[in-house]
């Protein structure tokens, strides 16, 4: 039995929690003090003294360079100005409540974004990483990284445009199959038949299993010699084959239905990743569709039946329009998730024997950053990918008229 080490981890976590608690308390106390003091005639003077003291202390005691020390000091004074002339004691409760999460999100989203933009114009890779950690400065390179990203093919990397095309194909294929199978299964489950609960539970399994386990298990089944998939294909081919003289002819093989080298042939690998991800994603769309279907009042169908509408007409003119408000946001979410799905692609391709010809943008990005350690290059790459996604989503949201009020959808 290997021994467990329990204590150091708990201590580290406690330290982290304590730090978070102190940070939150400090932030709230800071805001609260400002709300209490902004009317005082000494407020601006006091704030100026405090920020000057902070800047001086950072510079002299903590050894910050002059510019960041002045910047950090003036942030405090700008806060005071904002409180005095813009906020003027209003919105105290919502600001106090929203502040901790806002600062957290800003630090963990905005800062990385800004840093990413900075990185993309400079040169940082494994060679310059040590220098950067010691001195904090890296060489400015201008647009070089972006040019490298958009270049049509290079020795070290697949062409960006090829990967982009593959990513769009990936997103489209997955979304179509997810929505189609999800909706069909939901329609079947939304009937009065026996064992519906059991069916639903079993069909949820792909979503319930930890994704890593599901993907790795599938990957094993795609092994060319020992996996079940090739085995199954052989069985099917044998069933649908017939003998002509001495030779056996399997017509399904003519359309490419035969055992594949799933791990090493890029096209087969891409197909297998699609299959796995479709399998993983159907339950989500199924449950979303089902909850949409169940919210439709039965009286619509009664009325339509009285008027003699066929099943297809009822589906087309009642079901579709009424589940649209549920489906469209989920489809947008699903599209973004699929586009950004680095996990499945990485786990299916990254291992020994895996090929790189099946990467989508985000998995390629991950590999450039963390396998090849091309930090600046991947920063530029990330910005390009993000712009594509942003344009895509804005276009789609416009077209489905969802932008009037993000709060009210």
């Amino acid at each position, binding site marked *: 039995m*290997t021994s*467990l080490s*329990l204590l150091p*981890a708990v201590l580290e976590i406690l330290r*982290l929690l304590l730090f978070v608690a102190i940070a939150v308390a400090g932030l709230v106390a800071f805001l609260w003090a400002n709300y209490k003091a902004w009317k005082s005639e000494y407020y601006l003077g006091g704030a100026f003294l405090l920020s000057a003291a902070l800047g001086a202390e950072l510079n002299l005691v903590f050894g910050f360079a002059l510019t960041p020390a002045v910047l950090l000091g003036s942030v405090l004074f700008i806060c005071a100005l904002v409180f005095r002339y813009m906020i003027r004691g209003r*919105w105290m409760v*919502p600001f106090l409540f*929203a502040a901790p999460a*806002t600062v*957290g*999100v800003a630090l*963990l*989203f905005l*800062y990385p*974004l800004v*840093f*990413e933009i900075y990185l993309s114009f400079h040169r940082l890779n494994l060679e310059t990483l040590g220098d*950067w950690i010691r001195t904090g400065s890296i060489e400015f390179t201008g647009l070089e990284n972006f040019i490298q990203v958009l270049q049509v093919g290079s020795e070290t990397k697949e062409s960006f445009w090829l990967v982009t095309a593959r990513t769009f194909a990936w997103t489209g294929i997955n979304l179509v199959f997810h929505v189609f199978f999800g909706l069909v299964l939901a329609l079947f*489950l*939304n*009937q*009065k*038949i026996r064992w519906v609960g059991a069916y639903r*539970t079993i*069909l*949820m*399994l*792909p979503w*319930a*299993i*930890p994704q890593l*386990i*599901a993907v*790795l*298990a599938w990957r*094993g*089944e795609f092994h060319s010699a020992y996996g079940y998939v090739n*085995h199954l294909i052989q069985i099917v081919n044998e069933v649908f084959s017939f003998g002509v003289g001495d030779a056996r002819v399997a017509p399904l093989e003519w359309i490419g239905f035969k055992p594949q080298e799933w791990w090493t042939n890029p096209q087969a690998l891409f197909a297998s990743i699609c299959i796995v991800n479709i*399998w993983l994603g159907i339950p989500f769309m199924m449950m*979303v569709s089902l*909850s949409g279907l169940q919210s439709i009042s*039965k009286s619509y*169908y009664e009325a339509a039946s009285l008027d003699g509408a066929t099943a297809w007409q*009822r*589906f087309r003119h009642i*079901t579709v329009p009424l589940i649209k408000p*549920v489906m469209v946001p*989920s489809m947008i979410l699903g599209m973004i998730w699929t586009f*950004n799905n*680095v996990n499945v692609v990485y*786990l299916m391709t990254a291992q*020994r024997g895996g090929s790189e010809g099946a990467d989508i943008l*985000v998995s390629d990005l991950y590999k450039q950053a963390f396998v090849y350690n091309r*930090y600046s290059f*991947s920063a530029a790459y*990330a910005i390009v*990918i*993000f712009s594509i996604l942003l344009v895509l989503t804005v276009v789609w949201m416009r077209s489905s008229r969802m932008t009037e009020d993000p*709060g009210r*959808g």
Partner: protein
Amino acid sequence: MSSLEKVSRRQSLLSHVFLWAACLVALFPVSRIITISLRPGNRLLSSDMSLIPDDASLESYIKILTEKPFLQWLYNSLLITVTTSMIGVCLAATAAYAFSRFKFPGRKSGLLFLMTTQMIPGAMLLLPIYLVLTKMGLNNTYTGLVVAYSVTTLPFSIWILKGYFDTVPKSLEEAARIDGCTEFGAFYRILLPLSKPSLAIVFLFNFTQAWNEYLVASTILQDSRLRTWPLGLYELQGNFNSEWGLFAAGSVLISVPVILLFLYSSKYMISGLTLGGVKG
């Protein structure tokens, strides 16, 4: 096709056939994992395709519990996951309260920004966070991992909780305010107890996200003592020849409680997701 219709015999039969087929597909890798986990010793790469092997044994289960630091992986995962979820729920609940109940400048753009964050590829944020953690010496620590995890879950949690809070009538808190409760008191004593189910869902959502995560963990944790279970299992599966059976056994041990928890909570989870999507 509504539930109202009398289902004809033919349609019912068709549905059962279709649903049976779908269930077979859904169960396929699961059954395979169970089969492989029951295979004894070194018969791992056999092409034997029966569901329960003739010479089934629990050898792999015993081996992974005794010869591998499987329990340590579970402990590490549990610690990180619970911490992430706790921080996530606390920060998300207060922020969601502000977004749901008050009008203030920056509310709209804040909500829009939260939605935008969902579009940012994880790998994009991971790089600067990784570099900064490396610079601060937090690389290869739990702290670094918890920080990285809260990044991805916080906006979504706020979004879901705001959706729930919107459905709780405001008049309850107003009544409490008239009776002399402070704003924080109204939030803490009225709204939070009323939205316990939704808090549980957000906790669970955070929990499953962090519990199943592999990629970020593999980037930030290098020390084998710090490994979470996905890192451990991935390594077992990487050694395809020798430890495929151990991987399968570990998978079964981890999946069973996760699946049960998930199936139990999924109904609420779906309503939470769709509510957040529809009503914002």
